[in-house]
């Protein structure tokens, strides 16, 4: 297991390095930041001076070399727009997104396990039929539309919840609610499928023949086995949210990593783009390692490989 993890970390570092190089060059294809930062009628000398100052005139390999040099000092560059170290800006944004992602995924996972298991207990029963329709709808709901409709209903018409911004519990309700919908719908279907398989397994028969109560049969014997495929999908979904709940953050004005990334791309704020991608990639790497560990914890057969 240790060997497997270290292999996994090593290959992830390679991937992150490759990603980083790619982002550096691709970002510079989007055009000259000067066009965005200087007034339209700025004279040529000013433009030249701007480019000179930020090093945009140097050949791209020189820029890359300087970037690598800075990187070894732990310096990810300065934000053009905010005139602060890029990494500081990113590290302010990431906890916002992560807390949003953690709460949303916990709710989605818990809800999916309960609903999915109960649906699987009597397939084609009334509960199963309802949960199938609802989960399919949820899994295919377009979140931008749901978000705007929710604002219209709960903020504009009813006035119960704030439209945007960050603050106490009321500010969390809508963004979390919107983020939960899709993973919940998807996970209910995955849990249902894997629990139907687990509940028809032979070891469930053994447990029943031992006189074990039905709730223990479902939530101990079957669930522990049924969770394995669920974890893969849940990890995928968690990574997607951590990668920036772009739409939700933009609509609700949450200062998270998704919003930061979109803004800095729009503003050609290269240093921030790079820093946020690096940090996100590391977060996703950690999520993947957590999934691997969770697998090993749940399934001894993987642990002993």
């Amino acid at each position: 297991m240790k060997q497997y993890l270290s292999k996994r970390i090593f290959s992830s570092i390679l991937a992150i390095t490759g990603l980083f190089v790619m982002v550096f060059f691709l970002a510079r294809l989007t055009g000259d930041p000067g066009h965005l930062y200087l007034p339209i009628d700025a004279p040529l000398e000013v433009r030249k001076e701007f480019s000179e100052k930020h090093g945009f005139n140097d050949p791209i390999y020189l820029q890359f070399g300087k970037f690598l040099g800075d990187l070894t000092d732990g310096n990810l560059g300065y934000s053009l727009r905010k005139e602060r170290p890029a990494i500081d800006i990113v590290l302010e944004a990431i906890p916002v997104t992560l807390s949003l992602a953690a709460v949303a995924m916990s709710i989605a996972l818990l809800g999916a396990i309960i609903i999915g298991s109960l649906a699987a207990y009597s397939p084609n029963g009334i509960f199963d039929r309802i949960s199938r329709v609802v989960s399919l709808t949820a899994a295919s709901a377009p979140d931008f539309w749901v978000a705007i409709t929710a604002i219209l209903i709960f903020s504009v018409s009813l006035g119960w919840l704030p439209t945007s911004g960050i603050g106490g519990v009321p500010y969390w309700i809508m963004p979390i609610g919107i983020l939960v919908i899709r993973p919940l719908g998807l996970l209910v279907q995955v849990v249902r499928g894997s629990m139907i398989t687990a509940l028809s397994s032979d070891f469930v028969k053994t447990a029943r023949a031992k006189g074990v109560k039905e709730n223990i049969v479902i939530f101990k014997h079957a669930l522990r086995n049924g969770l394995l495929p669920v974890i893969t999908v849940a990890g995928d979904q968690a990574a997607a949210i951590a990668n920036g709940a772009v739409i939700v953050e933009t609509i609700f004005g949450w200062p998270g990593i998704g919003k930061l990334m979109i803004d800095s791309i729009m503003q050609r704020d290269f240093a921030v783009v790079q820093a946020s991608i690096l940090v996100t990639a590391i977060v996703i790497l950690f999520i993947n390692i957590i999934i691997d560990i969770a697998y090993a914890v749940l399934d001894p057969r993987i642990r002993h490989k």
Partner: protein
Amino acid sequence: MVTKVSDANKSLLKVNNLSVSFDTAEGSFDAVRAVNFDLKKGETLAIIGESGSGKSVTASVIMGILTCPPGRIKSGEVLLNDLDILKLSDSDRRKLMGSKVAIIFQDTLSHLNPVFSVGSQIAECFEVHKNLSKKESWNRAVKLLERVSIPNPSKRAKDFPHQFSGGQRQRVMIAMALALEPDIIIADEPTTALDVTIQAKILELLGELRDERNMGLILITHDLAVAAEISDKLIVLNEGKIVEKGITRDVFINPNHTYTKQLMDSIPGKITKNKKKTSKKIFKPILQIKNISKFYDTIACDDVSFNLYPNEVLGIVGESGSGKTTVSNLILRLSSPSNGKILYHGKNILNFNKKDLLNFRRKVQVVFQDPYASLNPTMNIYEIISEPWVIHSDFLDKKLYKSKVSDLLISVGLHPDDAIKFPHQFSGGQRQRIAIARALALNPEIIICDEAVSALDVSIQAQIIKLLLNLRNKFSLSYIFIAHDLPVVKDLADRVIVMKSGKIIEQGLVNDVFNSPKEKYTKDLLKASPSIENLIN
């Protein structure tokens, strides 16, 4: 004294007029029809039948684990100590399951939960029924593992099912069933997947525990010899009905019903024909295996040498891990030996180029053990049988495919119309016939049968053996017949090789090896193999 006798005569379990049906999309069919039996303390009842006879359904009803629907109990009562458990509420009934009556299943790898340690699975019985603390339950679980002779029990209790061998897993299962000292243990095919020496030990353990605790034992099996070894009385089920009932010894000496007679006739190991005496002087061997070895992490096959002569059936017997299948893979060139030579008509197949190898493969075909897994479920029978000709495109003109498929189906006892059907529409025995037809498609010289009949019911097994012998004469084939089941090899083979841990222990003519084995291992194997003769004589 008197009380003791009346106590002993009291039935622990009485099944009266039990009928169970299954409601499926094609309609309802009766799996168990008006079955009656009873069981007393210290007694062993064998329920014998082939697949689909309703024996496991009966056990599921007693254990309250019949899946309903599609299952439906139509009538009858199951009296456990005079209490009809079919009338109890689920929670009342759960209190009896595991504590008064417990079950041991066949496929222990799937019947034990893969994600919990064996210790905790046994301990769960005490937590559920006796409300004991975790620690006390665990200690009792360790004691039980010790009782069923798991070495180093306090350490092994923490291990998971996949870390045990098949025989040890069955011991764990038995320990779990024993936990609450039930009055009755139901053993559903407890030894079917096990090697013969392990089987003997498990049966011995069950008998010992039954006597020690004066329990009632219900042994569900398709194997008449196993029933003969351990049971006091038996019932024979056929299509859900009891066709024969009585004291085990009486039934085997004098079976009444034709079905029982048919089953007894199907038992392998009774054909007393004159075995072919292959004369080495007349025939040159088709296949010469010379000192082959194969090393993986361990030694799978070590310095093995033998010959195969034309029109001969060569049996290879041994327990799991003895290297039988490795030898077959080496001959088929599915893997290459680490050392040694394999000569086919005097030429070393290891030096064959692509074209030679293709021709060699045409001449050497294989029939595998599991006819459910070895046929592609998405191909119809015509496609399955004709596929070899597509690969060996010079073998047969495409226009002749259809008539040749029909010929092959007829020669394995199926109907030409079966060509358009798919594998799932056939029974296990029929599927094995299809696999044999496919093997015959390229007019091979040699067919390797790797446990080809071990997944089949005994009466079907007898039919397939007969078919293989007929085909040998018709197409002048040679077989390499790999099996763990000694009586089957005795019926079919001319010569036999006994393997253990990758080495050949003994080889010779079948009658010589079986009637007067020279090596101790061969003697042990033969002794462990259950038989009805022991009971009758």
